[in-house]
């Protein structure tokens, strides 16, 4: 059964040093507030999993929370590079960063396999790509019926899954609207799940086929209005494109990043 708590409590109780943590949201509903709380609580040695580790993981990597990154596209969408991630990979600053690199299809399949309780994902992928040369987690498997050679990778089974959603009802059932990405699969594949929401409502008013996660699939819900900013929440607020552009300059420079970290994360205090 789900419990409601503050974001600080949810992270304190839910995320341990050394955990594998998947924070998802495909451009949309990215749980930035939860990421900043992890930075504030100085969690360390995390393995972060995310298809598109954009600004949220650039910030966590730059803050020194991360030892390993599992991903499939690492950039600042429409702008350029993730400079803190690059500094970690290229210069081991603020620490070395191990990477495990996949394609989107692979990670989407691996989350789905994780949510399905399977040990591996099988799909028609990586044909002719050199990614299998640099990622030992990509294997080939032969279909016992057709003989076709397919790709196999291990399921994603995070210790903690964290996502943002539009709203929960008072019992803790959660509704996702718009680009639902991989939100459902993250919660269902994780051992422990935390969902931040824009608001609590009396009735979800969800259509019969809406993307709803029942309360009993979620460990903790924290109400964090604006918790996905600077990404967007469909029906609540738009994407702050200027923030993404400004981030390029902040993240390029270690000192500027440190100033940002102090002013925008540490000094803000618990949420």
């Amino acid at each position, binding site marked *: 059964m789900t419990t409601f708590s503050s974001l600080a409590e949810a992270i304190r109780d839910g995320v341990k040093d050394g955990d594998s943590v998947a924070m998802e949201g495909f451009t949309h509903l990215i749980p930035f507030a939860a990421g900043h709380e992890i930075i504030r609580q100085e969690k360390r040695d995390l393995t972060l999993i995310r298809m598109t580790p954009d600004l949220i993981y650039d910030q966590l990597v730059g803050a020194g929370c991360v030892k390993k990154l599992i991903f499939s596209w690492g950039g600042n969408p*429409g702008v350029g590079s993730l400079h803190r*991630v690059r500094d970690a990979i290229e210069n081991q600053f603020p620490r070395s960063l191990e990477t495990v690199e996949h394609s*989107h299809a692979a990670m989407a399949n691996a989350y789905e396999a994780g949510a399905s309780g399977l040990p591996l994902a099988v799909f*028609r992928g990586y044909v002719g790509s050199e*990614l299998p*040369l640099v990622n030992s987690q990509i294997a080939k498997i032969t279909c016992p019926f057709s003989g076709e050679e397919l790709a196999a990778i291990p399921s994603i089974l995070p210790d903690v899954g964290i996502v943002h959603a539009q709203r929960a009802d008072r019992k803790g059932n959660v509704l996702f609207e718009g680009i639902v990405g*991989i939100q459902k699969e993250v919660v269902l594949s994780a051992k422990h799940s935390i969902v931040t929401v824009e608001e609590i409502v009396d009735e979800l008013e969800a259509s019969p086929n809406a993307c709803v996660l029942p309360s009993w699939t979620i460990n903790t819900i924290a109400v964090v209005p604006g918790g996905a900013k600077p990404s967007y929440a469909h029906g609540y607020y738009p*994407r702050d494109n200027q923030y993404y552009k400004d981030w390029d300059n902040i993240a390029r420079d270690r000192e500027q990043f440190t100033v940002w970290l102090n002013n925008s994360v540490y000094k803000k205090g618990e949420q």
Partner: protein
Amino acid sequence: MNQSYTPSEMMTITAARALSNGTSCFVGIGLPSEAANVARLTHAPDITLIYESGTIQTKPDVLPLSIGDGELCESALTTVSVPEMFRYWLQGGHIDVGFLGTAQIDRFANLNTTVIAAEHQADGKHGAYSYAHPKVRLPGGGGAPEISTNAKEVFITVKHSTRTFVKEVDFVTTLGFGRDGKGRENNPNIGKGPSVVITDLCILKPDPETKELVVTSLHPGVTSKQVQDATGWEIKFAEKLDETPVPDEASLKVLRELKARTARQHAGGNAQ
């Protein structure tokens, strides 16, 4: 030559023309997205544009800055989850054209969006070596590796320069025809691969036998030497070399208005 359009506009409109009405097109962000939307707003009103964020049959009024902008969802016929997008729609064989950009492309149309090597390793020392010795770490594959093999065919659009058009890519993120041109042989379960590459100088197509890219059409005012100078290998030209038709006024108007709307919406301009 006093042209009333830029080389970029020439590229976008030529790329748009390559898309037929009624096609289902899996669209990459950036140049492919620009071209695909010009196609939709001109000669191909019934084209189905699909973005990897799960938006199907989307009709954005402005170009998305990211692959998952709200505009894509709001104007889509329907929006599905990311696993459904990659499993049912792409792998399931429902995509006619995958439309991709790239950072590097080689003579067999292999694409690299993973890493630029510290020093290029000729003849055989690529891939894992480049990956371990990066000069520039690029974003990675994203959807491209499976778009390229699971769509029925692939269109590529990219600006022409020796940095982009290299003899051998430092890393094959995404299969064109493989390092030897034979990467799709004896594999009936994947698509036919790149069928056209559109740049700001010319149109290239793979040779039907060797799969090496051949220039089939020069844009108006562009010389063979210009193309050769912007290409990192000895480029072949088709025996019958066409001249690409100039952009029509209607398409130019649509493209310029689309870009102006996009700039206004993204306040400060599209960062492509």
